[in-house]
């Protein structure tokens, strides 16, 4: 599995209460392995806590990306982690939350979190 793709950059930050994966780019068939790989490794690091996906840089998410997010939520459940998604851009929020009804399942946080 390749963890790097020009279409999506993912960075993992370790925090006392869990890990954050900051994503930038498009989440689709070509880049979905980047999310799966990085978030998967974030789940293997440290004690179970909150896995935060920072979507500030995500401009596009298609049905393959949605499938990966659902898969990630299921992996979090199995591993005892809490998933949440923050800083979602309005266009991505419109698709994932309003049209697909995934807001509460993916724990999409309404406002940007500070500190």
């Amino acid at each position, binding site marked *: 599995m390749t963890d790097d793709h020009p279409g999506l950059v993912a960075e993992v930050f370790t925090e006392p209460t869990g890990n954050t994966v900051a994503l930038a780019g498009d989440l689709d*068939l070509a880049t979905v392995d980047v999310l799966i790989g990085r978030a998967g490794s974030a789940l293997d690091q440290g004690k179970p806590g909150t896995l935060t996906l920072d979507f500030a840089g995500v401009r*596009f998410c*298609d*049905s393959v990306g949605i499938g990966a997010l*659902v898969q990630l939520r299921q992996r979090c459940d199995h591993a005892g982690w809490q998933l949440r998604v923050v800083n979602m851009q309005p*266009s991505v929020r419109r698709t994932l939350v309003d049209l*697909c*009804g995934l807001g509460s*399942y993916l724990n999409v946080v309404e406002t940007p979190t500070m500190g």
Partner: protein
Amino acid sequence: MHAVDERLDRILAVTDATLSGLDTEDLLAELLERVRGLLAVDTATILLLEPDSQHLAAVAAVGLEEEVRQGFRIELGVGFAGRVARDRTPVVIDVDETTVVNPILLDKGISTLLGVPMVTAGELVGVLHVGSYEPRTFDPADVTLLQMVADRAALASQASRYRTERTATLALQHSLLPTQLPHAEGLEMAARYVPGHRFAVGGDWYDVFHLPSGHLGVVVGDVSGHGLRAAVVMGRLRSALRAYALESEDPADVLTRLDRKIRHFEAGNLATILYAMIAPRRDRMTVTLAGHPPPVLAVAEEPARLLSVPVDLPVGIDAAQKRRNTHVELGDDATVVVYTDGLIERRGQIIDAGLQRLCDAVRPGPAETLCSSIMARMQIEQAEDDVAFLCLRRTAR
């Protein structure tokens, strides 16, 4: 000087433009034949990776034709070819029971094997190996030449695999979509399916069926993912939904059952679905949405609009959520359009732009004409994904 000429000849022999005219099977056979001569070896074999099973299967061979005829397969990481594939690096071995697991290699009396990985765009495609009955060594130039051949073979094999998969997916898609919509009194219908670009084909469907009560079932759905696998899952969901529709006349209940079926038998798959039942008198529709965009409704003298229908989770998600039905009145002149997201989603645009464009395109009128005008106005050529949609219009009974 002589050595350089010879090396150049060898390179030309495997990069020869006339090879491009051959179909993949002939190309692989010809490359193996040439490489056997160039490297003065006795056998040459290509094994391709089967991505689903993670096994390598022999597909072309000279000197070791038994491998192909007997359908030799080996797990990634096991044996000689498995090791070349796993490590993605050239490997030379002296053949004995400790280095190979394939009995054919031992029985044939091969002494030395050189194998190189076939990789294209970072993806492992297979393994190419050559063997010699007499013990021998391979110098770096031999390895480089074999790697060139492997690269060429990898490219051709991968392209052929994509072509085959796309053809098979399209054939399956078309066999599963209605060739003709059923005749339904009081309704006129038309539909379109446009496959996505390149690999993004498969997984979308629409369906229309009569129910014993006189209701008409209307479905449009989208299995997450692409290719043959998505099309196969789509076929199963389509059949299962029809079966549950016979058992229950409550759309939310039908999708609840379907959800349970997917989670049990098709775990790991995800689909968005719109399922609607249109009343026998055609004046009412009950609709439920599983992660799917809402229908567009048009009546004469008014701009078309999105129906306000609450959306529940896609099917295939491990969550106990109560699904909801929404009842919609259909006036005498109502036109309804249901669709998959490929119709409205364009990279770099907020989805509302696509929804608005669709509403602007929907006008009362014959369903077939409406389909054509939606096709013309929705920039279908820019759609990367599958596009499926269905137009229904009430008519005098």
